[in-house]
């Protein structure tokens, strides 16, 4: 493992750079970015520096210190969140959704949703049910296409979701392979699904999940206009796109069936899993 290196991270026509020094720092960067392309045409617009010494980790973005301490998990959590935001900020040339992405036998499923919509927990559960996992955070659909490209990174499972996933995933047995903070766990995808095939996929369906405690299950088809309107909320790079991405959203909504999902537990979904395939 290189102890001093510079790595670029490319996604959705955007790029950042990460300069690393130290073994622990290198391990963090490998943990977070090993499945994301290091090559592309975009020029990195921000550089992170991760340094590890005997007892300390330091993370900087340009001249700003984002973390100084001894916790690999805290450092990784901050770097993951900040770098994801930085990549999204300059993305163009397509629709970038705040979304999970999965694949069932070559058919891509997009799960767009804001924070607390349940998309990470739902996508983790679907991966444990045999879906190939692409991302729990960002999915990019290039202009004019219906192919989904994923920012494939460790799942970021928030602490409140642990109880929902615990029947299906042994957090304690895998503790040494996770990076855990009081806020949640970073879980490598291969722990959920060892045979996971990470790739882009043709988009087959879009489901907008909304977790609501005690809610009755609902899976409702949306008209193309209602679908495009709902997708606006999850489009993170609208200001970088012509006409705020509206023509592209409309094109996608005309091409791909969109449904609204409301659920309160996985048993409801297990009974209707064919709708997700």
């Amino acid at each position, binding site marked *: 493992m290189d102890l001093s290196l510079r790595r670029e991270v490319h996604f959705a026509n955007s790029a950042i750079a990460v300069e690393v020094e130290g073994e622990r720092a290198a391990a963090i960067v490998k943990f977070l970015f090993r499945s994301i392309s290091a090559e592309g045409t975009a020029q990195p617009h921000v550089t992170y520096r991760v340094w590890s010494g005997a007892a300390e980790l330091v993370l900087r973005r340009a001249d700003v210190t984002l973390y100084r301490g001894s916790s690999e998990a805290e450092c990784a959590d901050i770097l993951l969140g900040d770098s994801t935001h930085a990549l999204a900020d300059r993305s163009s040339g397509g629709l970038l959704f705040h979304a999970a992405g999965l694949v069932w036998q070559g058919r891509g499923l997009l799960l767009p949703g804001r924070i607390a919509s349940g998309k990470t927990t739902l996508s983790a559960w679907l991966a444990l049910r045999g879906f190939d996992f692409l991302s729990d955070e960002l999915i990019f659909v290039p202009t004019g296409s219906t192919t989904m490209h994923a920012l494939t990174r460790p799942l970021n499972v928030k602490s409140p979701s642990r109880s929902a996933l615990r029947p299906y995933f042994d957090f304690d047995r895998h503790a040494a392979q996770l990076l855990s903070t009081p806020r949640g766990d970073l879980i490598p995808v291969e722990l959920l699904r060892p045979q996971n095939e990470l790739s882009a996929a043709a988009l087959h369906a879009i489901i907008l999940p909304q977790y609501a405690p005690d809610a009755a299950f609902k899976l409702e088809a949306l008209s193309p206009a*209602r679908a495009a309107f709902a997708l606006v909320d999850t489009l993170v790079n609208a*200001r970088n796109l012509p006409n705020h991405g509206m023509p592209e959203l409309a094109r996608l909504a005309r091409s791909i069936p969109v449904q609204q999902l409301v659920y309160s537990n996985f048993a409801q979904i297990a009974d209707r899993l064919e709708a997700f395939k």
Partner: protein
Amino acid sequence: MKDHPRRKPDYQLEELDGELLIYHPTESNVVYCNQTASLIWHLCDGTHTSAEINALLSEAYPDAAASIPADIESTLHTLTQQQVIEWI
């Protein structure tokens, strides 16, 4: 009295199966209109009062005449609040 609703300029439309998305090319606001609201939007050309819009739609859709006044009031209220129409 300004009682003629008029679509503001520069707003773009995406029409999908009779429903509308109204948006501005440089602002983040997007308005969804179902089929009824889409009809009302199209009649906001600055030459009709809301009463005249009511009369036109009630004549065109007599089976829905009972609900049209409320639909018009609600739609015009929303379009005004969203600042996609002005009153002249």
